[in-house]
């Protein structure tokens, strides 16, 4: 019986059926659910890694040891894992190894919309691109066969709409495979310069074989219809193209997109009158088609920014607008994502927003919202881990040139484990007086509550060593460390006063569980839960908006009577509003 699965669920099922032994990832939208679903299969060793480089290398180690292995990450995660990626392009594998990468056209949840297909070309590895969930599952299995047959890493390139769209999938059985024998082979995995020099020769030979395969495989197929129009497409863009052209065009559908099938493209392009190349983001295929000497329509008309859909393709190619209902869209108020009611980050950013002459370098997570209205307590957010190192560089310059500026670097617990540790080492080693604030909400929040080295649990739910952040930062050489509860504004203020007065680098750990987290045994032992609800005494409320300016979604300023009201459904009783109210108009009930 066919099942309706997301692309991510289908990848997990494919990994299971392919007999995968080992899988690792760091969570990142839109790739997170791949490992969450793989972890449901006891046959597969499944791990959250501290970052994508570690996940990739762990999967490579498993492959060298003889296992079928998989690493999954979002597009920008591959930037972190790029170092082992390129060398694995040289070494090849022992057990099959598949790298699943999820791009995010449209930046639904990312800081850029890089097109990772160029990574496959750059690292000289094979690449597959599924268009829907069935293909995602099938291609994972084929990817392992290709990996083992050609001794290459295979990249499965997904996009948000493939990862998070559901379509029908026919499930199959798992094929249990023995590990391949482990053989020590210095000419393959010991990539010293002399070895690498010879490996590069092999890489080029392998690419030729892969190109022959690309021309032969059914993953790249032609569907002949009317030959007036020919469409070359891949990934979810193929589904959009089918929607736009239907039976009125012939298609060269590419599922194996590195190396591209030169012969097959030539055969197709020569037989159609007008050639279109339809792809999301960059002109990866179009550049190749043009290099083969064929004229085509592609990025001259179809945008290379943001995601596509059938309507965008049709309107950009044919320059005719789809009829829509006309109305005044300016009437609609924005509905931006906000920190939840009771979010511990709110107290932290409220406290921080009161400081003057401060540059706040932020990082990637829910707490990035601390930079948005109304708190606006963040100056930069670049990439995972950058808060601490960007802050370090800025502070060194401010100090050398006598600028009266303090720097506060803000990073989450999971992000600190990901890539913050090296940066904090830099702060100590190169002596910048920055204040690093680690917002420890006891979970990887934004991606939907995954465990990390500080939570005390593994992906499989087993108890493990809980890494102590204070001990870790002290081991890195930080002498001044304090832990505060960010929902207690006086504690927080005192900690800021203390840190701002120091003439050496310090760390403040702002520690309270994410309001949406299901508390673990360890959380229950350590923290007092929030209880009761806040209410407003309308007699005392002067309508000053101090409380609504914390950005709590449970508070509403009612314009008609110039008073604030509390939504009892959303309020969790964190008492932040009570602490900022100048007239003590907010009180607690039910605790």
């Amino acid at each position, binding site marked *: 019986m066919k099942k309706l699965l997301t692309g991510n669920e289908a990848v997990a099922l494919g990994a299971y059926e392919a007999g995968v032994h080992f899988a690792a990832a760091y969570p990142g939208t839109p790739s997170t659910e791949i490992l969450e679903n793989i972890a449901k299969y006891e046959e597969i060793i499944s791990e959250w890694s501290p970052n994508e480089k570690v996940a990739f290398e762990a999967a490579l180690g498993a492959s060298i040891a003889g296992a079928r292995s998989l690493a999954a990450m979002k597009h920008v995660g591959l930037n972190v894992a790029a170092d082992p990626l390129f060398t694995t392009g040289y070494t090849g594998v022992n057990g099959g190894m598949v790298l699943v990468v999820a791009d995010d056209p449209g930046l639904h949840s990312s800081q850029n919309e890089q097109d990772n297909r160029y990574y496959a070309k750059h690292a000289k590895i094979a690449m597959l691109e599924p268009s829907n969930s069935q293909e995602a599952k099938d291609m994972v299995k084929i990817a392992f066969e290709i990996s083992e047959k050609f001794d290459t890493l295979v990249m499965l390139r997904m996009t948000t*709409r493939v990862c998070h769209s*559901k379509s029908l999938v026919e499930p199959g059985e798992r094929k249990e495979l023995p590990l391949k024998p482990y053989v020590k082979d210095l000419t393959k995995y010991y990539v010293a310069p002399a070895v690498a020099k010879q490996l590069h020769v092999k890489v080029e030979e392998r690419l030729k074989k892969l190109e022959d395969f690309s021309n032969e495989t059914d993953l790249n197929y032609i569907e002949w219809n009317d030959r007036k129009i020919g469409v070359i497409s891949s990934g979810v863009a193929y589904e959009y193209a089918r929607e736009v052209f239907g039976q009125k065009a012939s298609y060269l559908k590419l599922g194996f997109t590195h190396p591209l099938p030169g012969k097959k493209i030539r055969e197709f392009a020569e037989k159609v009158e007008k050639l279109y190349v339809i792809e999301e983001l960059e002109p990866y295929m179009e550049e190749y088609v043009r290099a083969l000497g064929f004229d085509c329509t592609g990025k001259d008309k179809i945008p290379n920014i943001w995601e596509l859909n059938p309507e965008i393709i049709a309107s950009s190619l044919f320059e005719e607008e789809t009829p*829509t209902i006309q109305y005044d869209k300016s009437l609609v108020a924005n509905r931006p994502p906000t*920190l939840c009611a009771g979010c511990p980050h709110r107290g932290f950013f409220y406290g921080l927003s009161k400081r003057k002459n401060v540059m706040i370098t932020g990082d990637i997570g829910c707490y990035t919202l601390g930079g948005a209205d109304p708190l606006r307590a963040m100056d930069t957010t670049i990439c995972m881990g950058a808060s601490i190192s960007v802050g370090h560089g800025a502070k060194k310059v401010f100090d050398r040139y006598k600028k009266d500026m303090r720097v506060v670097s803000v990073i989450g617990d999971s992000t600190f484990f990901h890539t913050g540790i090296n940066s904090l080492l830099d702060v100590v080693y190169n002596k910048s007086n920055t204040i690093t604030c680690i917002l420890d909400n006891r979970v990887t929040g934004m991606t939907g509550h995954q465990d990390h080295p500080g939570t005390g649990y593994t992906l499989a739910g087993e108890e493990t060593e809980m890494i102590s952040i204070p001990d870790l930062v002290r081991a890195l050489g930080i002498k001044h460390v304090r832990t505060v509860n960010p929902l207690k504004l006086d504690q927080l203020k005192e900690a800021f006063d203390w840190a701002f007065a120091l003439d050496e680098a310090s760390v403040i750990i702002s520690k309270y569980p994410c309001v949406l987290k299901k508390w673990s045994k360890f959380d229950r032992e350590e923290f007092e839960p929030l209880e009761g609800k806040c209410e407003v005494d309308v007699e005392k409320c002067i309508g000053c908006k101090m409380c609504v300016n914390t950005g709590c979604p449970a508070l509403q300023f009612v314009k008609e009577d110039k008073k604030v009201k509390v939504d009892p459904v959303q309020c969790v009783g964190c008492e932040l509003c009570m602490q900022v109210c100048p007239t003590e108009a907010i009180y607690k009930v039910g605790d």
Partner: protein
Amino acid sequence: MTDTKSILLVGVGGQGTILAGNILSTALLEAGYDVKVSEIHGMSQRGGSVSTQIRYGKKVHSPVIGRGQADILIAFEAMEALRYLEFLKPEGKVVVNDYKIPSAPILMGKADYPENVIEILKEKASTSVIDAAKIAQELGNMKVMNVVLLGALAKAMDLTDIDWEGVIRNTVKKEFIDINIEAFKRGRDKLALAEA
């Protein structure tokens, strides 16, 4: 385009749009349609605007639609209907919950909730209004508001060969089966009255 129908389900993070989408897509699947569903996860969950696209027909290619391509727009929150109205075909139908959730700028007094949303919708498109919160309250559980709306949507879709009750029975937790089936029926019947 082909015989494929497109439903755009919109609301605010936390309103249960995902469960409603799951019931709907399962029901369509069991009725023998090819189905594709697209959702956006991630940052939009934090109180932001959310949307689910459901497409069904003999053979569905694209999981997503663009502007002017939805046959039915079902909005769990009134202002969200207005936000996504441009995705509706001019001859398409709107089913809107008469329910307001102020967004962050409105809560802070920096923006206003638009006036006369329902009137604007009615003027611009074939619109059915349902007070799903009231029905859910009468049933004693605000959480079934999403299934009330699903019932209304089912009526608007006008598909006769679907075993909605069976799907609800298999999708929701055992202790909530009865109340959800009742919620579905109330939503369906309410819309029938509204359309009559």
